[in-house]
């Protein structure tokens, strides 16, 4: 620090106050509460314009954790609710201690999210895992996303608000295709009886290999065979090729999709890692217009990370960091 003081910028010092304030605002912005008070914009509609009969085993549709982007009713439960607030979005949950190798891999990464080390905000939460207290400028990050490398399955599932984060589920009798808007990426979740026994012999994939079966009204998806160049989320947590990710998906109401996942990766973590619960809101197709129009061309955007675009952006990013 230029002035020798151990102070963090105001934006981080004020985070707890702001989180409380945002929480209050969030819970007063339900569709019913939005109303017409103050002459504000008309309340957005709920996502119940979908006319399909409610079927807990039907996961088809567009799902987003930031439904406001699509002018769909607010979804407070779509936000990560954490015992300790962390700037950014991620896998979260009950973070396990790393193995020596896992810790070494984590420390080899540099990211730009969470709290700055030794900042007042970081010190305010002594029990928060140190992995969330390593934020630096993006210009010095080793985040594979900043090179447009595929971000991988777990990280795609942790994308949350705004444009990145929406996905489409297309379901058939023997598989579900999950298409992620950010990265223009997809995976197949096979339900044709195949197993993961031989996956260790196959070339690792960023999105791994996925199979699923129904347990009552819960779709249990098991994946393995991950390319280990990816991070679990934006905080740099490592994942090995032999890691097993088990997702438990439910459709608890017509307009909500809920998932909790557990990562078992003995190479990097000392015990299984259960994530926080993630919730998505159903976005009616007509709200997916690519130009925001009422009856526009509705679809996922081709929201790719293009290396030449990223390289241009990085020149601005580097300038902002005074990087030579």
């Amino acid at each position: 620090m230029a002035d020798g003081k151990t102070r963090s910028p105001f934006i981080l010092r004020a985070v707890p106050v702001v989180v409380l304030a945002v929480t209050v605002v969030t819970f007063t912005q339900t569709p019913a509460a939005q109303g017409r008070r103050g002459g504000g914009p008309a309340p957005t509609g709920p996502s119940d314009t979908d006319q399909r009969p409610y079927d807990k085993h039907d996961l088809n549709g567009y799902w987003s954790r930031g439904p406001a982007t699509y002018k769909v009713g607010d979804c407070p439960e779509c936000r990560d609710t954490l015992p300790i607030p962390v700037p950014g979005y991620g896998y979260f949950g009950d973070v396990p201690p790393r193995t020596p190798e896992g810790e070494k891999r984590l420390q080899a990464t540099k990211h730009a999210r969470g709290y700055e080390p030794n900042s007042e905000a970081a010190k305010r939460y002594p029990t928060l895992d140190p992995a969330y207290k390593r934020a630096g400028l993006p210009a010095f990050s080793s985040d594979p996303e900043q090179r447009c490398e595929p971000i991988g399955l777990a990280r795609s599932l942790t994308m949350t608000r705004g444009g990145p984060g929406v996905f489409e589920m297309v379901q058939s009798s023997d598989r579900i295709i999950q298409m992620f808007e950010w990265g223009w990426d997809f995976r197949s979740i096979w339900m044709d009886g195949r197993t993961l026994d031989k996956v260790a012999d196959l070339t690792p994939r960023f999105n791994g290999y996925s199979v699923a079966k129904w347990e009552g009204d819960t779709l249990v998806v098991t994946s393995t065979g991950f390319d280990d160049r990816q991070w679990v989320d934006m905080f740099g947590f490592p994942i090995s090729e032999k890691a097993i990710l088990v997702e438990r998906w439910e459709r608890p109401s017509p307009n909500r999709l809920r998932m909790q996942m557990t990562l078992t990766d003995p190479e990097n973590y000392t015990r299984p890692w259960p994530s926080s619960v993630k919730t998505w809101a159903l976005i009616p197709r007509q709200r997916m217009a690519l130009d925001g129009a009422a009856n526009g061309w509705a679809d996922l955007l081709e929201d790719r990370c293009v290396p030449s675009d990223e390289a241009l952006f990085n020149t601005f990013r580097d300038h902002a960091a005074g990087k030579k």
Partner: protein
Amino acid sequence: MNIQTRLVALLMLVIPAIASAHHGSGISYDVAHLWTTWATITQFNYKNPHPTMTVDRTLKDGQVEHWTTELLTSPAQLSRAGWTKVRSEDALKTGTRLKLWIGTARVGGTSGIVMHLENAMGNEVLQSIGGPSAAPKAVEMDGVPMGLQPTGADKLVPGSAGQADQ
């Protein structure tokens, strides 16, 4: 409303947006101290992960100052709000004069993040979601050399890893 309350109100406006900037841009800029200036677009790039632009500011003594900026929003968010590439590039054509709400890079200098934009008619352009938004509180610095530069705890050493307290 005291200054602390005003600042918290401002942060309530910007933090959700910063959280959506998935490349972590927010940490690079002093978004707690915004300032405004008129500027002329010299280049606008409607590209992922965040749009960028270069602008020229004319100072009170007539000299021209060149700035590089990024926008907090993304092409995906802009598209969903109706700001397609064609519409956005038309609104930010080279030579267009706009009023910018800027947070200067924490290392200082002529780099910043644009949090709000208005055209000569006073209309907001490139708003992402939710329609027109109120202009955030900012210090008027039109024509003032270097605009508002970060100070004290908000300032970083250029070229450092950006971890302020190490």
